[in-house]
C-alpha cells in the first residue's frame, strides 16, 4: 500500500485536476479512524455509516476552504465530531429529551446496542460502554480519543479547541467516573 504523504495530498487537493484523486486517497486513509470516532459517539453502525458519508461529503464540498493551516486529520476529525454532536442533539430534540437528560438518551441507545448485531463485546466491554454512556458529551469525546485512539492531548486540543490542561482534567474526571461505575459492577 502506498505511503500516505499528507503534504503531497494537501497540495494535490488545491488543484482542480488532481483534487478528486487526492480526495480518494483521503477517504481510503481516514475512513477507519473517523468511522470509529463517530461510532463510539453514536453507537449504532447504521448511524455511524450515514454520518461518516456526510463527513466526507462536507469535507469535499468545503475542500476549497481547507488551506493546510491545520492538519488534514484535524480538519476531518472536527467535521466528524460536529456531525456526531449535531446528530445526537437532533435525536434528543426528536425524543424531547433535555440536555440534562442526555445520559438517559444514551442509555436508551445502549439498550439498542445489546440487540445490535454489530456489537459482540463481552460483559466487561458492555459495562465499559454503559459507563461511557453516563459521561457528558465532552467527557465522552475526550475519553474516546484518549483511551481508545490513544491520541496525544495536543492533537485532541487542536480538534476540540480546548487547552491541554483542561483536557487532562476532563480525562481524569471521565476515568474516575468510569472506574466508579465499573466498581459498582464488581469489575476490577
Amino acid at each position: 500500500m502506498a505511503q500516505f504523504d499528507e503534504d503531497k495530498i494537501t497540495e494535490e487537493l488545491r488543484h482542480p485536476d488532481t483534487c478528486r484523486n487526492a480526495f480518494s486517497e483521503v477517504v481510503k486513509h481516514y475512513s477507519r479512524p473517523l468511522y470509529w470516532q463517530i461510532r463510539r459517539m453514536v453507537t449504532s453502525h447504521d448511524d455511524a455509516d450515514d454520518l461518516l458519508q456526510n463527513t466526507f461529503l462536507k469535507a469535499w464540498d468545503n475542500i476549497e476552504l481547507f488551506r493546510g493551516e491545520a492538519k488534514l486529520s484535524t480538519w476531518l476529525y472536527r467535521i466528524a465530531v460536529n456531525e456526531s454532536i449535531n446528530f445526537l442533539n437532533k435525536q434528543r430534540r426528536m425524543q424531547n429529551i433535555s440536555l440534562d437528560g442526555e445520559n438517559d438518551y444514551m442509555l436508551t441507545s445502549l439498550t439498542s446496542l445489546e440487540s445490535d448485531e454489530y456489537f459482540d463485546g463481552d460483559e466487561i466491554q458492555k459495562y465499559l460502554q454503559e459507563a461511557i454512556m453516563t459521561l457528558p458529551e465532552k467527557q465522552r469525546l475526550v475519553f474516546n480519543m484518549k483511551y481508545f485512539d490513544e491520541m496525544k492531548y495536543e492533537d485532541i486540543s487542536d480538534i476540540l479547541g480546548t487547552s491541554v490542561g483542561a483536557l487532562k482534567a476532563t480525562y481524569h474526571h471521565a476515568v474516575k467516573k468510569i472506574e466508579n461505575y465499573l466498581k459498582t459492577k464488581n469489575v476490577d
Partner: protein
Amino acid sequence: MKKGILDNINRKSGMKVPDGYFESLHERVMQNLPEKEIIVERPAPVSFWTMAKPWVYMAAMFAGIALMFKVFAWTSDDMTNSKMEADAKDSDTEIVEDFIFYNNVSDYTIYEYFAEVD
C-alpha cells in the same frame, strides 16, 4: 504508579462492522461525491478604454501643464506690455523735454509746431 481498572481491561469497544464494510465504503463515498465545477480563470477582456486610459491621462496631464504655461505666459506678457507702454510714455516725455531744454527751443517754435500738427 497505581494501575486503575481501565489499565487492566483491553481497549476494545466490542463494536464491529459488517464484513467488507471498509472495502466497499470507499467506492460508495466516491460515487456519492458530486463533480466539482472546474473554474478556469480566463483573463478578463481588455477594452479599448482600458488600454487607452493611461495614454489619455498622460495627454491630459501634458495639456494641463501646457495650458498652465500658456496662462502664466499670457499673464506675464500682459503685465510686461503695460509696463513697457508706461515706460514708453515716460521716455517720450523725457525726450521732448530734453530736446526742448538742450536745443533752446522757444515757446513760439512749439506753438508753431502744434499749429502745423492741428
